[in-house]
Structures are given as C-alpha cells and as structure tokens.
C-alpha cells in the first residue's frame, strides 16, 4: 500500500537545477509514468522517492507521512535499474531470492514467492542459469522478478526495457502492465519512449528541465496538451507546429498557404496539427491548402507523407497504402475542431467561455 507524493520539491546539484518545484500525488496501486527527454529530472525524482537523495526544498510523502529523513532501506521501495545490476556470480534463482535472504525471510516463503514471480514472468525454466547465459530479455525479467519478490510498498523502474529489441519491448510492456495489475502495487515508471509511456501509464507526468509541465491520463494529455512542448512530445510523428497570425476572420499559417476560420481565441502565436488529423487528396483547385509531396514512407498499416506547403514542411499520417508519389500536388485539409492553438509562451489557448476543456 503506498500513496507517494511530492510537495514543492526542489533539488539542485551545484548550480544545476535538477528538479524544479515538483508537486504530484501518485495514488495507491497506480501505474504512474514520468516521461521526458534525457536530463529532464526523471532519474532524480526516482532517487528522491527512493531516498538516495534528500530534497533541498519541499517534502517527500509516503502514505501521508513525510519521509525526507527516512533511509532508503526503511522506505520499503523496490527499484529496477536500467542496467539491471544482476549479480553475475549467482544463478537467476540466486539473484531473485537475494533480497529475501538478506531480510531473513523463512525459506518456505522464499520458495513460494520466487515460484510465483517466476511464473508471472515466464522464467521458471531458466532459474538455474547464470546471467551470462541468458538473453537480454530474460535478464530483464529476472531483474523484474527480483523486485517483485520483495513485496514492497511500491516499485520504481528506471527505463527497464529500452535495451530490448523493438518487438520484445512491445510484448514486455504489456506484460509489465498485467503484472502490476495482478501485484496490486503502486508502480512508478520512467521512460523516454512516448509510445511505451502512453501504453502502460494510468496517469503520467511530462517533465521539462526538472519541472512538471502536465499531469494526467495519456488520453487527456494527448488530446489536451497544456503547452506546445507537451503536444510535440506525445505522438509519432510529432505534431506539426506552425507560426500563425490572425487576419480578421481567419488564421493564416505556412506563409498563407494554410487558411482556417479564426476560433474564438486571442493571442494566437502558433497552431498545431497532428499528422493523423491531416487529410490529403489530389489537388483539384478547390478546397484545402496546396502542398507538394516531398517524401513518402510506407509503413504498411499506414503511410507517413512529408509535404511542403508555403515553404513549410509538414508530416501527415494516412491510413493504409494510398497511391501517392513524390512531387505530386495535393490538397491538404483538416478538421478545424482538431486544431490546437498556442500563445506566445507556448501555452495552449482555450476558449474563455468553456470550462477549460475542448
């Protein structure tokens, strides 16, 4: 059982601000993801939760208790490190039972918990092997099992599957989600892969330079990003962000190639179009913005098309395998309801008469 919270936590290393006034609450039994580019403070936050670092300002709370002064061992949180840190001189079984042996858990219980964890992670058949004899994916699962047997208050995982093959990553993240549900424990997860984050998280926090930009469910953040930075971060290919100016009743972007009916907002500095919201059809001189096809990337299930309109490059994601050739002239359209508008400092603009959601 663990609800983990930060209240205005700041952490500096020398002159570098690693964590900037971070506040959040991770509910009990939640799969919570911290997502951001390298050096945005994700690993520091994990270390603060674990107790390997103390905040300069603010409080770390576990189940409502302030734990700033509590040692890592006493916090009862299990961590899976990015480099796994498996003991090479012990078998997989030896590695997994190690934390329990350390804590003096009775042998029968050790066996039971180990068997349970091994079954959940499908590694029962390799328990007798040494880490050097295991594949990357198997080593990953042994590391996770080692955290699992401890039955801690919460789990922390620092980018545990980034080293795996693409295919294995897709499978393992579903496994992790399933295991977390079954284990019924809070899991705090760090990654820089946006698809992974959106797939596994119940809720997630987007970090930029140590500050939390937005917290919400993946859907909330994807559909209603708080800033252009957040909007660009989720979604692949990235959202197209274009400088835009209001001209009377319309908004103009991409060197006037793109014209949209002006929404009920003020202070528009840029607009965002998600590649999957763009529609492309052969240019017939009618509706839509004129564009030229620069690049076609056929991915089988969908096709990513790079276009140039009014001197600006955009990417569109089209379903299936449409017949589009490089240097074709096309018409670009978009549902006005799916356009995002941003202000001067990148914050998302919302209509003032609505309750803050589109």
């Amino acid at each position, binding site marked *: 059982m663990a609800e983990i919270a930060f209240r205005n936590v700041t952490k500096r290393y020398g002159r570098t601000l690693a964590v900037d006034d971070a506040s959040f609450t991770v509910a009990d039994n939640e799969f919570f993801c911290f997502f951001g580019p390298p050096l945005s403070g994700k690993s520091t936050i994990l270390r603060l939760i674990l107790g390997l670092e103390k905040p300069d300002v603010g409080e770390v709370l576990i189940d409502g208790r302030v734990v700033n002064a509590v040692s890592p061992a006493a916090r009862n949180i299990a961590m899976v490190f990015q480099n796994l840190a498996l003991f090479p001189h012990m078998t997989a079984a030896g590695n997994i039972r190690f934390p329990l042996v350390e804590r003096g858990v009775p042998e029968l219980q050790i066996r039971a918990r180990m068997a349970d964890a091994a079954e959940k992670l499908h590694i029962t058949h390799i328990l007798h092997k040494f880490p050097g004899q295991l594949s990357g994916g198997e080593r990953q699962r042994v590391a996770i099992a080692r955290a699992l047997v401890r039955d801690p208050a919460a789990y922390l995982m620092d980018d545990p599957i980034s080293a795996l093959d693409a295919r294995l990553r897709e499978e393992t993240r579903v496994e992790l989600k399933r295991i977390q549900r079954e284990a019924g424990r809070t899991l705090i997860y760090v990654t820089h892969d946006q698809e992974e984050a959106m797939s596994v998280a119940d809720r997630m926090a987007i970090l930029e330079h140590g500050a939390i930009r937005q917290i919400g469910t993946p859907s909330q953040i994807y559909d209603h990003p708080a800033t252009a930075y957040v909007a660009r971060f989720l979604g692949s*290919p990235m959202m197209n962000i274009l400088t835009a100016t209001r001209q009377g009743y319309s908004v103009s972007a991409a060197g006037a190639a793109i014209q949209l009916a002006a929404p009920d907002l003020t202070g528009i500095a840029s607009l965002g179009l998600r590649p999957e919201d763009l529609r492309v059809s052969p240019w017939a001189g009618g509706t839509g913005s004129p564009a030229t096809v620069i690049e076609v990337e056929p991915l*089988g*299930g969908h096709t990513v098309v790079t276009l140039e309109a009014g001197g600006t490059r955009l990417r569109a994601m089209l379903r299936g395998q449409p017949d589009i050739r490089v240097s074709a002239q096309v018409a670009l359209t978009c549902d006005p309801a799916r356009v995002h508008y941003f202000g001067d400092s990148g914050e998302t603009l919302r209509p003032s008469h609505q309750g803050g959601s589109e």
Partner: protein
Amino acid sequence: MSAIRLENLVKRFGAFTALKTMDLAVDDGEFMALLGPSGCGKSTTMNMIAGMERPSEGRILFGDRDMAGVAMGQRGVGFVFQNYAIFTHMSVRQNLSYGLRMGGRPKAEVAQRTGAIADLLQLGDLLDRPAAGLSVNILQRVAIGRSAVMEPAIFLLDEPLSNVDAAFRAVMRTELKQLQRQFRQTMVYVTHDQLEAMTMADRIAVMDHGVLQQVGRPLEIYNDPANLFVARFIGSPGMNLLAGLPLETAAGPVVDLGAIGHSPVLAPAQAAAARRARGAVVYGFRPEQVATVPPGHGMAMPVSFVERIGARTILHLGHGAQGAKAVFENDVGLSPGSMAHLAPIPAAIRLFDAETGVALRGT
C-alpha cells in the same frame, strides 16, 4: 561498380554456424536493410562485406570483382559502427579528415572536403572541439561524416540509431535517407527495428537464425510475407496468426478456427490457397485490416486488454496462441471483458502451411 553480390555465403565460428548459405544481390545505388532480431546473422554478414571477417564458404563481389583476399582497408567502403568508434582523443575536424590525411591527400583538398561535409551535416561550428564529451546525436553525424568524406561507393551502417533517443531518431532517419539519395551510394543498413527498415529502405532482407527469410520492397514484404516469421516480424503489431483447418461449408470455403468459430468466407484467391494446403493452416491477417461487425457475423473474441496510444487504439483479443490484436484509429468503445466481433478485410487474409510455415499462394 558498386553493386554487391553475396554468393553462397556461409560463416562458422567453431561449431556454431552464424550464417547459413546466403545469396543476396544489392543493386548499385540501392538502400538495402538487413533486418532481423539479435543473433540472426545480419552483423556477421555486414562484417564480411566490410572485410572484418572472412567467409567460411562462398564469395562476395563488388560489381564483378571478387573481394576474397582484399584487405579491409582496401575495399573502399564506409562503415559506421554501432557505438560510432569516434577517435575521442582528436577534434571533430581531425576525425572527419582522418581518412583523407592517411591517404596522403594534399592539404588544400583535405580542408575543402572536410569543410564541405561539415557544412552538409551541420557540424561547422563544432569542427575544432574535442570529440570526447559531445552528445550522442552529434557523434552520430561525425561518424557518418568521417566515412562520407571519403566518398565511398558503398556505405555500411551497423544499427547506427540504436543509441540515439527516440525523438532524434526520426530526424536522423530522414537525414540519412536524404544523404543516400543525394550521393546515390549503395547503402547496407543493419537494424532490428522493422520501423526503421520500412521507413528507409528501398528493399529489405529479413533474416532469422542465419537464414535469409525474404527479400523485397517494404510493401511487398508487408503485404505478402513469405513465411510466418516475416509475417510476425514486420508490422507493429505483427500479423495475427491463428491456427485452423480449411473447411468447405455450405456458405463457401472457410477456415475453422476452433474455439473462435469459423472465419468469414474466403475470397477466391485465398480459397485457392486454402485448397493447396495439405493439412492444418495458419490464418493470418494484419491488425490494421479488420473492421467491427454486428454480433453473429465475423469472429467473436473477448477483449483482454486495451492500449490507447495517441492516434491508435490496440485491442488485445483472446489469450495465448489463439490471441490476436486489432488496431483502430479511434476509441471503439470496447473495454476488457467485453466481446469484440471482427471481420478481416477478405483480400488481406494470408494463409500459411502450419507445418512448414511457408505462405500458401493460390497459383
């Protein structure tokens, strides 16, 4: 002069055969991806093309020239290592100009060519910085520039984007593709990421456990996989593969999928393929090529998990070996526990022989 031909190539390390009889032709100026999971032999193949390993059997030809006995420094290939192997005790400029300097080129030429490649790769401001301590993204470009400045006819890249963070990877993919287009070099690119291969390559060679599985254009491989391995490996998620038996019913030819029920009636091409089966078959369809249908039609499968990833929703259906996935553009309103009724697009069905794994074709 820069076409590559691999003939009957075999590589053994002691008792272990890393590569089993590979035949492959890379056309002049083509971007060929060697795609496969770890240990499939793709890096071994590339090392042999570069001359770092010697084939146990078979031969490698550049154009018409047999490369047996040609030392690795003499082959005129550019090579980008997975960890870049940048000379960290030199500056960026010294790295870029290394090959030219070792080749004894005149100073003016070295300076001019180094400058040109630096501008092309946007390294102009960093030329005199020590290479050590620079970010991975920059080192990537230095590694490419160092080989590119030699203007090799053949360029080999060994998983060069695996150390780069996800956001930058997309940018680098475009840059690499444009570089190859511009210089028309023959490029061989090793990767385990099918997305990279599909995005960048003119043709893809899919490998597994030292055996070449299929060679073809990205969409060819996607639409007509030669066997179960390729069907599963290409596409994200891979093709759904359900075990079944061909059956003639009153409604027409179908595949009996056991607990899931009967498949929808097969289209003529697929029906012809089914007739060629000698026993059990594998019924394959891509997760993106299904539609929801009213209950009573199509296949009924329980939803076990829902992944909502931005623009797509991935439904996990069924369990274990008879599990499947379906990808939709938006939320279909199904949650775990409910029943999904789906029918794959008839033309998109692919059948495979259950025993050999090979694709069954109507003709």
